[in-house]
C-alpha cells in the first residue's frame, strides 16, 4: 500500500526517471534524521545535531535564484518569528555553492542559514532520499524533525510548486502541543 508521499512521488516521476533508478524515497516520519555537517558561510559549518532539543524545519530546494524557490524562501523568511515562537529552527539546503547562497541570501534579505550541499554534491539530499540524479539538484522537500532528531513529517512537492508553510506549521504545532502535554 503506497502512502500519500509515495503516491505523490509516483505521479511526479516520469518513466525515464524511473529507469535511471532515481526512485530514492524521501525518509519517512519515524525515521531518525541522519546527522550532517554543511557550510553555512565560507568559514562556518552547521550540524544537525547542534539542534537536538528543539524542532528543526529542513527545507531542501532545487536552486538559488529560480523564481519558485525565491517565493518559498521569502515566505519562510517572513514566518521566521512564527517558527521561533514554536521553538523551531529553520535551515534551507540546496546544492548551490556557499558564495551563491551568500549572494542569494543578501539579495533576498534572508535571515536564516542556507546550507551548501555542494561537496560531495547533494550528499545530504541523498541521505534524506531527495536527490534528483537526472537534474543534479535536490527535490523540493520538507522535513520537520523533532527535538530528539526523529523525522515527524515530510513532504516532497512537485518541483515547480511552492509548497507553502501550512504543512510545516501544522507539524510544528502538533510537536509544540505534545511538548506542552509532556510538561503537564
Amino acid at each position: 500500500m503506497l502512502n500519500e508521499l509515495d503516491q505523490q512521488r509516483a505521479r511526479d516521476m516520469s518513466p525515464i526517471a524511473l529507469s535511471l533508478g532515481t526512485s530514492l524515497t524521501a525518509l519517512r516520519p519515524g525515521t531518525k534524521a541522519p546527522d550532517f555537517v554543511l557550510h553555512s558561510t565560507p568559514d562556518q559549518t552547521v550540524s544537525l545535531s547542534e539542534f537536538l532539543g528543539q524542532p528543526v524545519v529542513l527545507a531542501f530546494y532545487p536552486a538559488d535564484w529560480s523564481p519558485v524557490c525565491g517565493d518559498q524562501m521569502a515566505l519562510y523568511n517572513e514566518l521566521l518569528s512564527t517558527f521561533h515562537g514554536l521553538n523551531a529552527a529553520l535551515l534551507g539546503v540546496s546544492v548551490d555553492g556557499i558564495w551563491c547562497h551568500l549572494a542569494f541570501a543578501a539579495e533576498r534579505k534572508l535571515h536564516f542559514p542556507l546550507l551548501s550541499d555542494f561537496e560531495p554534491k547533494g550528499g545530504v539530499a541523498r541521505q534524506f532520499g531527495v536527490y534528483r540524479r537526472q537534474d543534479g539538484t535536490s527535490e523540493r522537500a520538507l522535513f520537520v524533525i523533532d527535538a530528539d532528531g526523529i523525522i515527524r513529517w515530510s513532504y516532497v512537492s512537485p518541483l515547480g510548486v511552492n509548497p507553502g508553510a501550512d504543512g510545516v506549521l501544522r507539524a510544528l504545532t502538533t510537536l509544540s502541543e505534545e511538548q506542552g502535554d509532556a510538561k503537564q
Partner: protein
Amino acid sequence: MRNSDERATLVVAVSERDHAQGRSDAPITLVEYGDYECPHCGRAYPIVQEVQRRLGDQLRFVFRNFPLSEMHRHAELAAEAAEAAAHQDRFWPMHDTLFEHQRELTDTALVGYAEFIGLDTQRMERELASGAHRGRVREDFVGGARSGVNGTPTFFINGIRHDGPWDVDSLMEALLASLPLALQHENKHARRS
C-alpha cells in the same frame, strides 16, 4: 499529521473582523490574501472589481493582508495604513488608492493618500509610528500561511484555495462553479456579460 498535498482550505473563517464588500449572505465568498506592493496583486485588483461587477449581490469579497515585507519594503506599512483607515471607516477607499498607486507607497505618499480620502492624518501617522496595527497585519499573515497561502495573490473561493489562473474568465468560471447547481444555471449569462 496531514500532508499539504490535500486541497488547502481557509483556516480562519470569514468573520466580523474582516474587511468585506458585498452581502454577508452572498452564496459565494472570495477571499484574497494580498500585498499592496506586489505587482501581481496590482494586476488582480481590476480583475476582482470586474468579477464583483458581474456577480453583484451573489459575491462577497474579503481582503486580508499578506505583505512580503522583506521583498517589498513598503508593503507592511501600506497594509498598516489600510488598517488605520479601517479604524476610521475608510478601509476600501484606502485599499483602492493603494492599489491604484502601488509604485508610490513611501511614508509621505501614504499620508497624502490618507488626506485625499479624508482621514484624520495625524491619527493615522500616530498609529503607524506606534505600530498600532502591526499585530492585526501579522495575524492576517500567519492565518494565511496556515491556510496554505504560498505567495500573492492567493484566492480562496468559499473556503477552498483557488490554484488555477485568475484572469477574469478563469476566475468567473471558478466562482460560478462554487455555486449550487440551480444558481449556476441562472448565472450562465454572467460568464459572458
